[in-house]
């Protein structure tokens, strides 16, 4: 916290942009990579790469742009709760859907 207070006194628009521009560059690179990977002739691996990259992009946006990296414990718990309940929703439903597919 004290480091942030100190840095704000020397902050310029340039440093503000630089701190965020690398994330944007990484997001653009990931977008280009996922568009390219979709044309690989590997079927299911393409799908996994597409959603894996979506997860990586989300992590960058959530941690840096949405500042979860520096958020309080309470805010992190709330963010994790959304993911946790969504995970329950997916796990229970897909356990049913996938087991029916396997046993068909």
């Amino acid at each position, binding site marked *: 916290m004290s480091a942030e207070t100190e840095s*704000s006194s020397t*902050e310029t*628009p340039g440093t*503000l*942009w630089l*701190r*965020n*521009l690398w*994330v*944007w560059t990484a*997001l*653009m690179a990931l*977008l280009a990579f*996922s*568009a390219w990977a*979709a*044309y*690989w*002739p*590997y*079927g299911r691996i*393409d*799908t996994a790469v*597409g*959603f894996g*990259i*979506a997860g990586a*992009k*989300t992590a960058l*946006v*959530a941690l*840096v*742009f*949405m500042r979860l990296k520096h*958020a*309080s414990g*309470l*805010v992190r718990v*709330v*963010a994790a*709760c*959304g*993911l946790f*309940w*969504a995970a329950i*929703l*997916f796990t229970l*439903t*897909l356990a049913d*859907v*996938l087991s029916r*597919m396997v046993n068909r």
Partner: protein
Amino acid sequence: MSGADVEARLREPWSDLETDDATAFARQRDGATFGIWVFLASEVLFFGALFLTYTAARLANQEAFAAAGRETNIIYGTLNTAILLTSSLTMAVASQAAEKGLFRRLTLGCLAATAALGLAFLVVKGFEYREDIEKHLVPGAHFALSQAPAQIFFGFYWLVTVVHAIHLSIGIALVTRLTIKGWRDADFLKENPQVEVTALYWHLVDVVWIFLYPMLYLPGRSG
């Protein structure tokens, strides 16, 4: 900082708390951030349910979903993803500049750019919708593809892109509101938690699109 200035910038009920200004500002900010995150967590579940419906339908109809995914326009889809990711950059810079209360022109410029990029997304989406309608990709009697489950894909496509566009339109209205109020009143944006709250909502709408991109535009490209 004068007493009246603090009163104006500390919104209710924080101005009534008997603490020093710094603590009151910190609590106001923490309360606003906590509140919007609770809402965002509920949005994660709302879109999570839609995404789960897509996942179950895709697992059951893999070939039809690949054929349907090939029909969406990947150029428009990729362009719109790039536009939204860039709008998240300008929104993040606006939010961080406003929090420090340092660079009013930078904050206003970035807010205006964010709203403009949001509008650009909707314009591109409009062109894409026109093409989809011309290609008979609306589920119903004159649907273009022979596989019946491809209509499930496009039913999902229309539902979820319209719901996303409504969310984005609300975001554009909120960002435009901040821009106008900040332009009229020089002190409005400085340390105002409304900027952070609007930014967090904007980023979530971006994250939803990040997942829609591989769901709607990438299936079936290699086949």
